């Protein structure tokens, strides 16, 4: 909130997730249902 950056921007900067992982994890559509997902490395 203090940086006014979006969550994907911060994760990308810090290199926490790969772009593919980020796309999966931060997909808003997936967040509208309870179907869980696992990060496959």
């Amino acid at each position: 909130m203090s940086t006014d950056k979006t969550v994907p921007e911060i994760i990308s900067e810090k290199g926490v997730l790969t772009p593919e992982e980020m796309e999966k994890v931060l997909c808003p559509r997936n967040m509208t249902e309870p179907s869980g997902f696992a990060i496959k490395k």
Partner: protein
Amino acid sequence: MTELRFEQDLLGTKEVPKDAYYGIQTQRALENFPITGYRPHRELILALAMVKKAAALANMKVGQLDSKIGEAIVEAAEEILEGKFIDEFVVDVIQGGAGTSLNINTNEVIANRAIEILGGEKGNYELISPNSHVNMSQSTNDVFPTAARIAILKLTKNLLSELEELYQALMAKSQEFDDIIKMGRTHLQDAVPIRLGQEFGAYAKAIRRDILRIKTASEALYEVNMGATAVGTGLNANVEYIESVVENLREISGLPLNSAENMVDATQNTDTLAAFSGSLKILALNLSKIANDLRLMASGPRAGLSEIKLPPVQPGSSIMPGKVNPVIAEVVNQVAFQVIGNDHTVGLAVKAGQLELNVMEPVMIFNIIQSVEILTNVIQVFREKCIVGITANRERCQAMVERSVGII
């Protein structure tokens, strides 16, 4: 100058307009209860005519009522059922006396019309008496509650039909908006994403529950106390008459009415009306919640949430050009407040019953009928002028999701 005729009752003599089909006791009620200015609902008048027709047929069947008089009463009641003489029902909807004034208004109109049918002049009650003939084997205390239930059930059919259409319209929007992702909010703060279709699906589900709740509550209203007469003991009513009058009423009304198992209970307790009114109140609560959500989501257009757009139906301001307000959602809110208030009135009246009768039924029935009617009307405009025309602001919804800290 209105021409007058004189009529007499136990309190004395009084002038009545010469052409009026109502008589002296209705005239007294007009003077005693100049309260709301509202007249009885048309459906209630028609239901009263059904009751009087059913009673006259039953009284003739058991040999208590002379067939010449009975047939004239039936013919007069049928004319009311065709829509004639509705403006002769003039007593106020809120009246002291458990509905006696409206029952008497009905008896007098039918008696005077029946007198005319037999070739007599209005007011000649020696020919046909409002009390002895039209009201034979009856009391206000069984006539009014029975007619009120018939009227409520008839009007509720329209309400349920409108509710079904609203449910379908909400479901259609749920499907239409299924792929639109927006921010969900709790405490009016950003929460996690939700699909706009899910919001509308939830509204539809609540309305589906309302339909079931109202149907369930209305089932208890099919039980009527015709034949109960004054205190539920059936004084002045023949057993065969009681069976016949309910059977006739089933046929005339087209409703699956049945005799109350316990007439004393059915004459003094009005909890079934409280339950029905309560189901209307819950519908009002749900509608108001939906209307509030729509107003929030449609706030803007530039400085609000602006996630959806409600169809513009009228200019919104006399001083701010171009402003359009969510007036249909606002009227839904206001109807809900009225219905909630009505339910409170019904509750107070229900608990005010004493011993063998609840004399407060007129105010209960006025409020319930008004609630059913204004809910029916507002649900129709809500669906036609608001719900079906709602559009989504997909880009705005998406932008807010992307900017949100909720996508974690």
